[in-house]
């Protein structure tokens, strides 16, 4: 193995950490724990983006890192903490599928993602290309989390965690998207979270609970 420069080794380590956090989120039973993990995931993402920006001289990545830090590490977790406290929904919740099974499915997804990413990362010219597989795995794991959760807030966190994975994928495959697009995406995500905030209050008001199990009336008969 050729020795990588240290900062890239750190990026790799952060990538591994991102994956680990994704798994931790899958196994987390408490909403507050989930929010904390989400904040950590954002922090790892911001740090690795900043390191990539520094090591490759891609200045627009600094903005992207700052945006991640501001939105996903500070603003959104704060908002979620606030929401959880206000709605008093921090109970232990068992997911739909028990946790060890979810984990096993998660491992299968990781293998799938790695295989899928392999041909692409071979073509990529970035120094961070090997982390693309991890990014894809994070996306799939977040997807899995959305499927196995029945509560509103965990589903949203799963959605945002998916966004994290996508940003990471963009960073590792192409050093990020053009700045305008990243700004637009960030704006959409921000608006999305606020829309959801309103929405969660509406659900709470109407159903007196945030359990989406109440929301299974609309099915094909």
């Amino acid at each position, binding site marked *: *193995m050729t*020795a*990588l420069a*240290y900062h890239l*080794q*750190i990026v*790799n*380590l952060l*990538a*591994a*950490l991102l*994956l*680990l956090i994704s*798994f931790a989120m899958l*196994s987390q039973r408490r909403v507050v724990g989930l929010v904390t993990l989400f904040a950590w995931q954002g922090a790892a993402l911001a740090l690795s983006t900043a390191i990539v920006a520094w090591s490759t001289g891609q200045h627009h990545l600094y903005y992207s890192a700052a945006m991640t830090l501001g939105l996903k590490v500070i603003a959104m977790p704060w908002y979620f903490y606030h929401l959880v406290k206000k709605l008093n929904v921090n109970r232990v919740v068992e997911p739909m599928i028990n*946790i*060890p099974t979810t*984990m096993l499915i*998660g*491992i299968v997804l*990781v*293998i799938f993602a*790695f295989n899928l*990413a392999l041909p692409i990362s071979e073509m990529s010219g970035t120094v961070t290309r*090997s*982390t693309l*597989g*991890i990014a894809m795995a994070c996306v799939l794991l977040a997807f899995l989390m959305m499927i196995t959760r029945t509560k509103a807030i965990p589903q949203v966190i799963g959605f945002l965690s998916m966004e994290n994975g996508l940003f990471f994928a963009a960073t590792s495959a192409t050093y990020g998207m053009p700045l305008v697009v990243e700004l637009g995406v960030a704006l959409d995500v921000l608006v999305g979270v606020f829309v959801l905030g309103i929405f969660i209050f509406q659900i709470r008001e109407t159903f007196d609970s945030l359990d989406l199990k109440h929301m299974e009336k609309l099915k094909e008969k």
Partner: protein
Amino acid sequence: MSAGILLQVAQTLLAILLAPLLMGWVNQCRAWLQGRSAPPITQPYRSLRKLFHKDAVIAHTASPLFRFAPYMKFACMALAAGIVPTIANDLSFSPAADVIALVGIFALARVFLALAAMDIGTPFGTLGARRDMLVSFLAEPALLMVFFTASLISQSTELPIIVATLAHKAFAIHPSLAFAAVAFWMISVAENARIPVDNPSTHLELTMIHEAMILEYSARHLALIEWAGALKLFTYSALGIALFLPWGIALQGDIAALPLALAAIVAKLAVGGAALSFMEVVSAKVRLFRVPEFLGTAFLLAVLGMLIHFLLEG
């Protein structure tokens, strides 16, 4: 060759003799951290001596297997201690067994002890044996995964080669090894019946695992089992050190490095033991039905480590 045999014998004896000391050190650290007055570090030796001087009491229903099991367990642990490089790397035993065989040796010891526990026919023995089998059933694949990760990096399952490769290498961050190390720590805790999986100092039927199996043993049999237990902890610690922190070990034919290696291993064991006792003090024992999750996490980490190795370091 003869130097190799000499080293081998010296290292095995050293392991057997030092093992209770490590146990004593862990107990002492724990007592300090809990604010109790600590027993002397040599306490395990004293208990062993006391046990050896007692008369053995054996149940009427016991078969020869029951008497034989402690010797078997001790022999297995001694053999394992001989395989794992502690101070020197060129051991003449090592080519005989690689990491996979090592897992087999641990399993052999466990099977005998479990059989012996069921042999008497008391409910506690059976319960302990069943729980212990559950733990090992979950821990073993995880342990194998950890070994696979380490052997993928060094392209060999032979411990000396793994150690030599890792010790020689320029420092590099291996996320895969970091994952494997955490997984290995969790597995060691489970395999050695420590908190949070088991509590070595409890005899509460709801929670005990390992202690339930050896309730019927006394005197020299108990002494051997306790000693073998200490040896197991020592071997696992040495294994962890060899895999993840091999620096300082005496490599092939380097006799002069032996004193330094000895100092290094003692220092590492001291730190490791202190860390173990610290973790035991700060964590609470998990309920039995959460143990599969604990070990599942270890397995997951080990598998992730391996996958990440393929992706990032392959």
